[in-house]
């Protein structure tokens, strides 16, 4: 069983009356424990693929399987449940809620799963500790640095114990030093068994993964297995 798998995935957008194909038969399997980078220039279909993997959107044709369960046919509510349960998001701009504390931000997906308040607090604190942020738990996003915000976002992604974490340009808004710190954390998480998919156009970022797939014009045009990814220490 794979963490996530796509079969002949197609996505066609309809802009006015013009049909714009964004993905064209993508077959992708990600095993548990993998660290995959999806790379490609803008317009290659990266974002579309990410939206489909993250269950934010449905394909025009083809199938998406997460943890052995087909999800592309589910309705909005069921899809929302899969998002909260199986997908951990980390975005370029962190996407934390500015009015909530770091702890409350991490608790957010658990709220929508209906986890009790005590349990939520406990798990969120554990996730923040894992990111070395226990001292920032009661700070709001504006009171902490960009790197810390991204770590809060990663804690939020981790807290539900998802099938995989989907990171969209996770270092894009950070200076290179902080970016490297985040990459180091991602590698450590992967070492602990977390399945990671990062979407990036940056070759340097991609080379921290153990496998890179190249996307162009909605198709996979290349795949590399890196025997020795860049190590951040």
């Amino acid at each position, binding site marked *: 069983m794979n963490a996530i798998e796509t079969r002949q995935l197609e996505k066609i957008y309809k802009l006015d009356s013009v049909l714009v194909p964004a993905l064209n038969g993508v077959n992708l399997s990600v095993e548990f424990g993998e660290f995959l980078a999806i790379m490609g220039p803008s317009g290659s279909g990266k974002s579309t693929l990410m939206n489909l993997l993250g269950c*934010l959107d449905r394909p025009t044709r083809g199938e998406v399987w997460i943890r052995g369960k087909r999800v592309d046919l589910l309705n*909005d*509510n069921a899809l929302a*449940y899969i*998002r*909260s349960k199986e997908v951990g998001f980390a975005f370029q701009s962190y996407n934390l809620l500015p009015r909530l504390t770091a702890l409350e931000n991490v608790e957010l997906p658990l709220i*929508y*799963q209906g986890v009790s308040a005590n349990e939520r607090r406990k798990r969120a604190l554990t996730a923040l500790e894992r990111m070395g942020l226990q001292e920032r738990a009661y700070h709001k996003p504006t009171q902490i640095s960009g790197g810390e915000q991204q770590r809060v976002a990663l804690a939020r992604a981790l807290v539900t114990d998802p099938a995989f974490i989907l990171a969209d340009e996770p270092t894009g808004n950070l200076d290179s030093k902080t970016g490297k710190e985040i990459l180091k954390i991602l590698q450590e998480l992967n070492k602990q068994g977390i399945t990671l998919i990062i979407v990036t156009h940056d070759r340097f970022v991609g080379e921290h993964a153990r496998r890179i797939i190249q996307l162009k014009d909605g198709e996979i045009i290349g795949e590399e297995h890196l025997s020795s990814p860049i190590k951040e220490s």
Partner: protein
Amino acid sequence: MLGVIIGVFAIVLITSIGSGVKIEVDKQIQGLGSDVLFIMPGNPSGTRGGGMAMGRNMIGEEPLKEKDYLSLAKNKEIMVSPVMNRNIEVRKGSESIYAQVIGSNYLYPEITPLPLKEGRFFNKLEDGDRARLAVIGSTIATEFFNGNSIGKQVYLDKIPFKVVGVLKERGTGFMGGDQDSVVYIPYKTLSDLYNVENITMLMVTPKNSQNIDELQKDLINEFIKIRGKENFRISTQAQILEIVGTITGILNLMLGGIAAVSLLVGGIGIMNIMLVSVAERTREIGIRKAVGAKRRDVLSQFLMEAVILSLAGGTVGLLFSYLGTIVLKRFDVPSAITLNSVVVAILFSLFVGVVFGVYPAYKASSLDPIVALRHE
């Protein structure tokens, strides 16, 4: 928000005035005794002039005269008192006020309760004698004599009267008017010295306890014989109070209209606030949806916010109406905030919040997470 405040304010005031008036009216019923009949000139169907036109006769109505009273007074089964009134300047030394001077006979305090603080009412002898005796209301007693008024003199339009009694404090009458600034004098004195010819009404009560509705029927027949035709009205206490009730009902209806419009405006205001809030927080909605919020999670969140907003407005409105009732009491308008009005206020603001929060909340819940996340 302001609309909700005004709306709730109006609703609470309506219900509190309503219940205040009811309490007051109940008190009046007990205060006047229930077996009193009022005979007034006018159309017997009772629509024209109403029971309220005391002291004024409508054009074309045949006023009640002394002979009507004297004829009716021959009936040994009943007690009758004429009631005449006129506004007259009451003076003591350099102080003067205009007061309602009521002319009645000595039976008046037996027909309707008229509690005295001190002194007495004029008696039968003095009544027939055109005596210049006055029973004064508590306000006049306090202002003119500082409470020590028995045996003193007051001038009614320059004619001296001796004070023989002081009434207890009674507050505002159910037909309006300050009942503490009145002067009772014998009706013959009033009619002879001040040229008052018309009797405003005759008040009747049976000597022995008798069914008031039967007495009403008997009196109508008897009075037709006296007057020649039915150009008068005989009403019971309850019938007059009914008219008062109708009037407060109309007032309530008007205030209700104001409340409805205000709540509508307030609701639209809340809807606007929520729509702006949804637009401003599009990204937040996207984030919430990305981490697993279902449509109904987002829907209920925004609905809750609308309801809280509206309830806050309602609470402020409630506070204002509490202050409002205090002000109204100053102006002698009876009002009382009851548990009922509080519940009504809360329910209404809840209702407004839900009704006008649904659309913005629905809009928020239907946002596409991808679009919402991309929103800056």
